[in-house]
C-alpha cells in the first residue's frame, strides 16, 4: 500500500505549503540560516519582501516571530528541530504564554536524520513542546500530509510546533486521502481487531508495513496516524483500545514524553490496556544510515511486529 505512491520527505511538504499559503498577505517567513534545509527557501525566492533572515540566532527568531504575530502577521519560523530547543524558554515565555499565533517548524527531527550524528538528532522536541499550554504539536508522516497539515495551521487560535524530517520515506497518503487529515484528529490508515499501532512521523509507513507482515501471520493490526500529539485525539484512542484490547506506540522520538507517553497517560486514566512503546529508549543516537540506526535502536519494522505480539500476549 505504502509503496504505491512513491517516497516523500515531510520538509518538502512544508516548503510547498508555504507557497500555497502565500496568497494570504499576512504570512511571513523567518529563517535562521537553514532555509535551504527546512525548505522555506522556496517562499524566500518568490516573496523575499516577506521573508526575514534572522541569522544563526534562534532565540532572537522566536521573539521576532512573537512581535510579528502581536502585530497581526502570521509568522512561519523554521530551523532544525534541535535548534528550536535552544529557544525553548523564548517559546515558552514569549510565544506560548501570550498565546501568539507563531508557527514553528523543526526539521531534521529524530534519529532518522542519520549521518549528522546525535547532536542533530532531536528526540525530545515533541515531549518538551507538548508540556506547553496553548501549543499544538504535530508530526506528519510524509510530504503530502505535512503540506496539508501546514495549510491548516493558519486556522489555529494559538501557536504550533511541527516536526518535519529530512529524508524521504514511503508515502502513507495520496492527494485523494489527504482530505482525511484534520489537525487534532488521528487518522485510521488500517483497520484490525487484535492490536492497534498508534504512530507518527516516519514510523507511520513502518507501522503499515508491520501491519502487513502481521496479517501474513493471521494477526490483524490497526494503524492510526496520530500526526497531532497535542491536542491528543483521546476519543479515537478509546474507541480503538476498547476494540483491540492492546496498544503499540511507534515514534522516532524518546519514549519519555512523546507519543507513547501521551497515549499511556491517557490510557492510565481510561481503559487500562497493555501498551508497548517503540521509540528511542533514553539514549542518544550516533552517525549512520537511517535504516541502520533504526535496526541498531530496535525501531525497525520487525521490532514493531514483535511489540505487537508482546502487547497481544499481555492482554
Amino acid at each position, binding site marked *: 500500500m505504502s509503496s504505491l505512491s512513491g517516497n516523500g520527505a515531510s520538509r518538502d511538504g512544508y516548503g510547498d505549503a508555504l507557497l500555497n499559503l502565500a496568497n494570504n498577505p499576512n504570512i511571513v517567513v523567518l529563517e535562521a540560516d537553514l532555509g535551504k534545509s527546512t525548505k522555506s527557501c522556496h517562499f524566500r525566492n518568490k516573496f523575499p519582501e516577506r521573508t526575514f533572515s534572522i541569522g544563526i540566532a534562534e532565540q532572537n527568531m522566536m521573539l*521576532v516571530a512573537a512581535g510579528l504575530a502581536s502585530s497581526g502577521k502570521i509568522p512561519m519560523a523554521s530551523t532544525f528541530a534541535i535548534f528550536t530547543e535552544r529557544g525553548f524558554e523564548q517559546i515558552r515565555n514569549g510565544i506560548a504564554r501570550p498565546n501568539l499565533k507563531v508557527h514553528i517548524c523543526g526539521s531534521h527531527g529524530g534519529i532518522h536524520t542519520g549521518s549528522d550524528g546525535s547532536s542533530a538528532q532531536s528526540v525530545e522536541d515533541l515531549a518538551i513542546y507538548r508540556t506547553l499550554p496553548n501549543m499544538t504539536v504535530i508530526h506528519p508522516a510524509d510530504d503530502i500530509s505535512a503540506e496539508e497539515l501546514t495549510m491548516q495551521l493558519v486556522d489555529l487560535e494559538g501557536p504550533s510546533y511541527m516536526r518535519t524530517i529530512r529524508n524521504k520515506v514511503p508515502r502513507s497518503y495520496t492527494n485523494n486521502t489527504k482530505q482525511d487529515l484534520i489537525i487534532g484528529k488521528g487518522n485510521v490508515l488500517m483497520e484490525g481487531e487484535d492490536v492497534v499501532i498508534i504512530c507518527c512521523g516516519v514510523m507511520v509507513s513502518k507501522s503499515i508495513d508491520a501491519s502487513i507482515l502481521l496479517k501474513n501471520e493471521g494477526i490483524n493490526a490497526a494503524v492510526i496516524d496520530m500526526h497531532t500529539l497535542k491536542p491528543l485525539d483521546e476519543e479515537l484512542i478509546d474507541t480503538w483500545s476498547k476494540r483491540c484490547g492492546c496498544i503499540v506506540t511507534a515514534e522516532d522520538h524518546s519514549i519519555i514524553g512523546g507519543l507513547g507517553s501521551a497515549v499511556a497517560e491517557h490510557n492510565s486514566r481510561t481503559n487500562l490496556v497493555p501498551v508497548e512503546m517503540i521509540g528511542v529508549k533514553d539514549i542518544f543516537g550516533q552517525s549512520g544510515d537511517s535504516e541502520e540506526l533504526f535496526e541498531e535502536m530496535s525501531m525497525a519494522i520487525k521490532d514493531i511486529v514483535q511489540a505487537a505480539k508482546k502487547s497481544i500476549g499481555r492482554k
Partner: protein
Amino acid sequence: MPLKLGTKELEKMALSCRINIIKMIHAAQSGHPGGSLSAIDMIVGLYGTVLNIDPSNPNWEDRDRFIMSKGHASPAMYSILNELDIINEQDLMSFRKLGSVCQGHVDMNWTNGVDFSAGSLGMGLSFGLGCSLAAKLDNSNRKIWVMVGDGETQEGQLWEAIMAAVFHSCGNLKLIVDKNRIQNDDFVSKQMEVGDLKGKLESFGWVVREIDGHDMEEICDAINWANTGIEGPMAIIANTIKGNGVSYMENNPSFHGKAPNIEEFQIAMEELS
C-alpha cells in the same frame, strides 16, 4: 494622539507615579521598587510627549508600541497606565494578588495598554524588532520603543537583536537603556561589567545618545530626537539612579526586589510628598 505635556506637568506626573510605585509594592509586600523608580522618568517622558496611543482604545492597531523588556519594573508601567486612566487605583492596589490585572511582571494578556509579556530578560528588543518589521510591512510610521536595563545587556539574545535591527534597517525601532548600574545580586560592575554600552551599540551600527535619565528636559529632548530620526535604530542610554526619589533605596542593591516595611513606607511617603 501624543500628549505633548510640558516639563512641569511631566515632573508632577512622575512624582505621582513614584508615590504609586511605593504604595503598590508596599501593599503587595513584594515587587521591584529600585528599577521602577530608576525607569519612571523616562517612561513618563515618553508617554507624556510623543508616544502615539489612544488610552480609550489601548489595542488600537496602529498605535506606537512601548515594550517593557525589564518586566520586573512593572509598577512603573502600571503607574503610568493609571495616569492615563487605562487602569485605576484599585487595580494598582491589587498588584501581585490573585486575579489582579497587575501581574507581578508585565503581561499583555492581563493588562490593557501592555504591549509585551515580559519577565524573562533579554527578549523585549527581539519582540520589538518583530513589531518593527510588521510596521514596515504595513507601511505604517508607528514607532516601536523598547526599554531594557543595563544588567539585562548581559543577555546574549539582546545582542542578537541589536545586530538584526541594523541588518533590517529598523529606523522605527528605539531602545532606551535604563542604566541604573545595579542588578539583582549587586552592582553591575561586580556581577558582570557591561562596559562601554554606547561604544558597543555604535559599533553595531546604532545611533546613540547618552543622557541624565532623571533630568526631564534632557529626557524630552532625547526622546524627541529619537522619535524624529528614521535612518536606522536609535538608542538612548539613560544614566539613572536605582531607587531614585527614596533616599534609603537609592543606589541600594537590596531594594532591587524588596518591599518597604511600614516604617520604610512612611519615610518614603514623607520624602515624596
